[in-house]
């Protein structure tokens, strides 16, 4: 389609004057994308909402769960509810809001290498995933401490580092799936609804249709990611996770990048 353009591209070298200043480094683009995710009212409220849900789970744990089950481990698990549920929406919005507000006109005019914007967006989403994982851990520690003071929590204070790593991994995975869905559908409501509905539909299908049950164990992220929550994760668990992520993360990510780099910007 752009044969003439690329033919010419390879013909003459770009004059040095046009290569200076150099293209914006990915780290800078990631900072810009991070800023874009947090500088609008919608983005900011979503972040506040995630934190609020995380914090709100603490009283739920303190008052609804038997004291001996209120371990720090379980508190952290509860404190990631908001992150796990809502952070992917931020990933979706990071892509779809650019198309709906047509800011892609500016973004891709300033950075014609669109795949670099994708990398920057994913990196920024990972930064937020890390920040919110830290927020969850701090919230859980505070929640557990309050439980101690109120005399309601009697569970262990133990928190294995690999468990924190697993939570971080899940947050990173889910927000990346959000970005990928955003790129594939490029439409906010559609991407968000499908992000939630498709896995549920698949889970239901896997549970009701006998023949799919075996496959669901390998392809249903609700089940494969749940395995990460167990104290010991087997090699097969990781393999199942890998296969399910190939379908839910890698496939949409690749399709999304192809669509994003090809789509005409209007």
């Amino acid at each position, binding site marked *: 389609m752009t044969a003439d*353009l690329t033919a010419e591209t390879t013909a003459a070298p770009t*004059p040095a004057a046009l290569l200076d200043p150099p293209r914006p480094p990915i780290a800078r683009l990631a900072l810009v994308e991070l800023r874009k995710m947090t500088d609008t009212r919608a983005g900011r409220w979503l972040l506040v909402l995630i934190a609020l849900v995380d914090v709100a789970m603490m009283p739920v744990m303190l008052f609804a769960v038997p004291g001996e089950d209120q371990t720090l481990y379980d508190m952290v698990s509860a404190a990631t509810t908001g992150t796990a549920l809502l952070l992917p929406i931020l990933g979706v919005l990071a892509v779809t809001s650019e198309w709906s507000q047509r800011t892609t006109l500016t973004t891709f005019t300033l950075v014609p290498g669109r795949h670099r914007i994708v990398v920057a967006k994913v990196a920024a989403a990972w930064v937020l995933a890390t920040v919110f994982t830290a927020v969850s851990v701090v919230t859980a520690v505070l929640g557990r401490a309050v439980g101690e003071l109120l005399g309601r929590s009697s569970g262990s204070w133990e928190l294995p580092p690999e468990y924190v790593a697993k939570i971080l991994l899940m947050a990173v995975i889910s927000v990346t799936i959000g970005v990928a869905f955003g790129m594939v559908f490029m439409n906010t409501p559609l991407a968000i609804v499908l992000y939630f509905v498709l896995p549920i539909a698949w889970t239901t299908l896997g549970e009701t249709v006998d023949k799919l049950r075996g496959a669901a164990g390998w392809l249903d992220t609700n089940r494969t990611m749940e395995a990460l929550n167990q104290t010991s994760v087997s090699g097969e668990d990781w393999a199942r996770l890998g296969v399910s992520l190939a379908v839910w993360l890698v496939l949409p990510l690749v399709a999304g990048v192809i669509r994003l780099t090809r789509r005409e910007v209007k």
Partner: protein
Amino acid sequence: MIDVKGLSKRYGDVPAVENVTFHCAPGTVTGFLGPNGAGKSTTMRMICGLTPPTAGSATVQGVPYARIANPGRHVGVLLDAAAQHPGRTGRETLALTAQTIGVDRRRVGELMEAVGLPPKAARRRVGGYSLGMRQRLGIAQALLGDPGVLILDEPANGLDPEGIFWMRSLLRDFADRGGTVLLSSHLLREVEAVADRFVVIAGGRIAAQGGKDELLAAPGGVLVRGLDPAALGAALAAAGLAATADRTGAFTVRASAEQVGRAAARAGTVLLELRQAGGGGLEELFLSLTSAPAAPSPVAPEEALR
């Protein structure tokens, strides 16, 4: 410098832009004129690498746009002033661009002042901006990287007369310092005063292009008005110039302005007015070029679809 060669864009069977070729030299302002839907925006998006062309090529400063390492520092682009996130403040919008292209944050404040968006307006969300304010913001954004080329799509849209005047002097100044300007408009009046060259597009094809004088050389003659109509009439007759008088005592003469001026000077009669006849000679030309119903495009041969 902008070079567009045989640029074409088809959407399925529908041609949006067909074989558009033009050149914008440094130090000039090129007015890209045509009615709505003529293909101006599509052409500009193709120049900026946002729309892949079906055929042809476009270069900016000698290379395809996407090959410029940090294009925001060489080319100022405003393709649609309305395409800004309404939830960001004007200042934040510019700050994002400044950070992306790596210019000093202080330039944001300077430019906002320069385009007539005072600090109070800069702190407001773009959603509350009028179209005119968004245009000013977009122009500030385009100028942020101190570029040598400006590509502006309908920048005068929504500006008040004072704003249009301001934009004209800004662009004139930019070109006089050696910059290249391509600006589009569907209203001739907006760009007539500032453009050196015009590219008129209608139905996706170039209808006419050239310097202002070239395009005006079309027959129509000049209109001349003197302090003493009778003496002026005699002077014109003496110079052998065919002149027709109108009710107000002005003459329409089939000759160049220089010929008429010399005839009056020889007779020593005072001129009050000497200009191209027809008021908007360019406007008439523009209307005649663009109002004709677009000819049905021939069925595309196979290779054109490639």
